[in-house]
């Protein structure tokens, strides 16, 4: 059984003297980045915020719409990679006084995020689920946990309103 190279799928050899060889094959690939996941050299946002009332009615533009120009030097868009099993990984804030934080769930795994400290109630970030948008002026910390077995990360957008 002097076999050194790759073995054909399903290899099973059985000799009359009871000796045997069996091969198990495992195959995988890599995920592919989508265009919006490509690294960005320059960040420039204009966020439009819309609010709903207690009955989930979208309030009118005249009531609450506001456009907030966010120059690139006071905004960031990152996708920090959280290793599998990592609990309460802190995400650096871009400023001690962040106006808005938008967290978009990862595309493949479910994660959780807590704010201010690690003792709070976690928000669950499910693939294709809802993100978290915060008026973040009182936020002092972001902590992300990845209970899955693959590295992944949410998209974290932070902005400080232009004064």
């Amino acid at each position, binding site marked *: 059984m002097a076999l050194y190279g790759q073995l054909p799928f399903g290899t099973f050899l059985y000799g009359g003297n009871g000796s*045997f060889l069996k091969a198990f094959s495992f195959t995988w690939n890599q995920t*592919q980045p989508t265009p919006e996941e490509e690294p960005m050299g320059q960040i420039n946002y204009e966020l439009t915020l819309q609010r709903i009332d207690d009955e989930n009615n979208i309030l009118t533009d005249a009531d609450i719409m506001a456009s907030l120009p966010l120059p690139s030097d006071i905004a960031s868009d990152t996708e920090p990679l959280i290793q599998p099993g990592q609990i309460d990984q802190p995400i650096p804030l871009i400023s001690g006084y962040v106006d808005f934080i938008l967290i978009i769930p990862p595309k493949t795994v479910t994660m959780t995020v807590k704010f201010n400290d690690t003792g709070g109630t976690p928000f669950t970030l499910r693939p294709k689920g809802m993100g978290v948008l915060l008026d973040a002026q009182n936020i002092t910390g972001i902590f992300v946990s990845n*209970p899955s077995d693959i590295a992944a990360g949410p998209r974290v957008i932070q902005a400080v309103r232009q004064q």
Partner: protein
Amino acid sequence: MPLLPSQITFFASAQPFSSGGVITIQPVPESGKNNLFQDTPWQSLEAGQVVYKKIFLKNSSTTVLSALLVWLLQPTEQEVVSIGLGTPTDTDGTVVTYSNPTRDEGFALPTMNPGDAVAIWLRKTTPPNTPAFVNNNLFQIALTGTST
């Protein structure tokens, strides 16, 4: 009685994604894409990643399997898989001693009586700055022994 290929199989462990714990009744397919490892996130090719899997090799035959040796045919892309022995219940793959046995060395497994199962940990390492995969990554475990 001749040994049949279906009588030597892997079974998943109980933690999510077969990442540790006790044996389950879920067989690990012997081939096919993502039959054990999920696709490596593209971000991890640059940053690096380590994934641990625990699987159980089970002797479902009526014979004793002895002189068992395992060796690895390393992934065809630039990742590395190592193997270590577990216990029936352990849950932490990071504390296991791993090796990378080749055909010339082999990794000895204990004799397996009918119905026995041996816990095996696999550690898949994606080094930082790994190039994008050209093809599907293929890794193989070869097992030799004697059935009596």
